[in-house]
């Protein structure tokens, strides 16, 4: 008897930009209530893959299933399941944090009272004064927190975070990963891309992507043990080297 389908199932996924193959025939699963780290340098294909999963980028070939639904056949149903936080946070800089929250809540179909109730939760953590400032004037760490909050507003089950920790200080990064852990324990599934290799330690499993190809996949500790490497950085270098020799 087979269990429930994985939260995300990617099979033979490829993306070409003209003649340039940005993602080449990758396959992986993200299990339910799992944090999967999507590691790789800039330009490795992380954002392209995430955008294909969200439906923001057309798939050249291959398939993406979200909670057992084919992304091409059920785009509307999949939208309700997914939350996405882009690399640039994509908040409106001239609107205050609260106005951003009200806007994204509004377009998600949430009633204003519901949005206000949710925003009150954020105000317990972040000063209301800061939330009433324009996004362009608030620190990156808070901006990141607001962007995550906005992403979670419609209550998605599966959350895709594209480089959420880029441009924020180490302390904010550490706090952010704490929040990601909290989401996991709350039943959410997370795929988190990053080029900070040290963030692998926060993940249940990692996928290392290089030049559009997944070169290593597994639980971080186990990967280190199998590949006989001391650090994720070493593991990353070894995986790239080994892949180049294939």
């Amino acid at each position, binding site marked *: 008897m087979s269990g429930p389908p994985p939260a995300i199932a990617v099979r033979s996924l490829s993306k070409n930009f003209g003649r340039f193959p940005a993602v080449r025939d990758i396959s992986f699963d993200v299990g339910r209530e799992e944090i999967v780290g999507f590691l790789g340098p800039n330009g490795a294909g992380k954002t392209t893959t995430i*955008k294909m999963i*969200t*439906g*923001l*980028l*057309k798939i050249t070939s291959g398939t993406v299933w979200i909670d057992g639904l084919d*992304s*091409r056949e059920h*785009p*509307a149903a999949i*939208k*309700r399941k*997914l939350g*996405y936080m*882009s*690399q*640039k946070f*994509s*908040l*409106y*800089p*001239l*609107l205050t944090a609260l*106005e951003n929250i*009200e*806007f*994204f*809540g*509004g*377009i*998600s*179909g949430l*009633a*204003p009272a519901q949005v206000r109730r949710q925003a009150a939760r954020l105000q317990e953590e972040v000063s209301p004064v800061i939330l009433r400032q*324009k996004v362009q004037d608030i620190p990156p760490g808070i901006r990141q927190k607001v962007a995550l909050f*906005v992403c979670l507003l*419609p209550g998605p089950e599966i959350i895709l975070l594209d480089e959420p920790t880029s441009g924020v200080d180490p302390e904010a990064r550490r706090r952010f990963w704490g929040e990601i852990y909290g989401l996991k324990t709350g039943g959410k599934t997370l795929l988190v891309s990053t080029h900070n290799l040290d963030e692998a330690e926060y993940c249940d499993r990692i996928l290392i992507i290089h030049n559009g190809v997944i070169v290593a996949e597994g639980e971080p500790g186990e990967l280190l043990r199998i590949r006989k490497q001391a650090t994720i950085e070493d593991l990353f270098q070894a995986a790239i080297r080994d892949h180049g020799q294939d």
Partner: protein
Amino acid sequence: MGRIKAIIVKEFLHILRDPRSLTIVFAIPLIMIFILGYSISYDLNRVDAALVDLSQGRLSRQLGRAFAASPFFVVRMRSEDGRGALSLAQAEDLLRRGRVREIIVIPADFARRLSATGRSEIGLVIDGSDVNVANLVYQYGERVLMDFIAAMTGAGQVLRIGTKVHFNPEARSQFFFIPGLVAVILLMISAMLTSLSVARERETGSIALLFISPLRSREIVVGKTIPYILVALLDGAFILLFARFWFGIPLRGSLLVLLVFALLYIVSGLSLGILISTSAPTQRVAMLATMLSTLLPSILLSGFIFPLDSLAPVLRAISYVIPATYFLRIIRGVVLKGAELRHFLFEGGMLIGLSLLLLAVASRKFNRQRKAAQ
């Protein structure tokens, strides 16, 4: 409706807080109407002319004085060193150098032939390098000569042409051009507002969040259009008031009638902007594409400068799908002639048709672009 309202509120907040949006809305129209209002004109004031009097008689001097006294010409009769009368060769040299636009040549036998035969000839040599100017110079010259002949022969007592110029009695070309400018600017600004708004979302990446939200494409298009209708209407009123009080352009018709048609016209411009934005990856490209696709056709092919009758058949066909073609007739009619709503039912119908067509095409293209990603 709640989702559209969220977009409307967001767009309003953005317009109010973005200095660039405010510059587009108020400063660009002001600069354009100020510069173009003074630079585009058919009026010629005090044209430089050379008078070569080969006759040097009483009658020819009278004619020379008639030209000099007219409000149209500044007449030069002496050579450049001031020592003698201007020769034909010297006058031709002045014409070639662009110092004069016209040479009036009074032949040596002018008075003798007139008294002997009752007929004589006067030569007008006109600089034809600028056809519009040449036509005006010819008309001005002819008018001075007609007045001179009438005074001399008393013909004016027998036959007078009673001319009454309606709507623009002083024949000021600003009265013709400035309402047209309002139409041209309004289309450009309307299209620019939406094209920049969508391109900005694309540049900052926020469009991705709109695309993966439950919003329908038509909700995005409608939500982005409604606030800019109000902004563009405000802008239109602002430009019109400036035209009224700075250039003295009259408003003889109903402001309400103009408002109704302006609303339709603005929707066509905003839809055009969204259509442009679907192909513009950045705000800079959007701005350039909007300027090209609104200014060029509405200046050259709408009847703003050149009458539609003078266009080649292909260009005339294109003019039928330019919203400015219809709004120009309306605004000139309402502003200058006091025309009413019933006079522009065809133009209004065409504006409704074009607005709906552009809105539908823009929504469809926007939706296709969104779906192409999926």
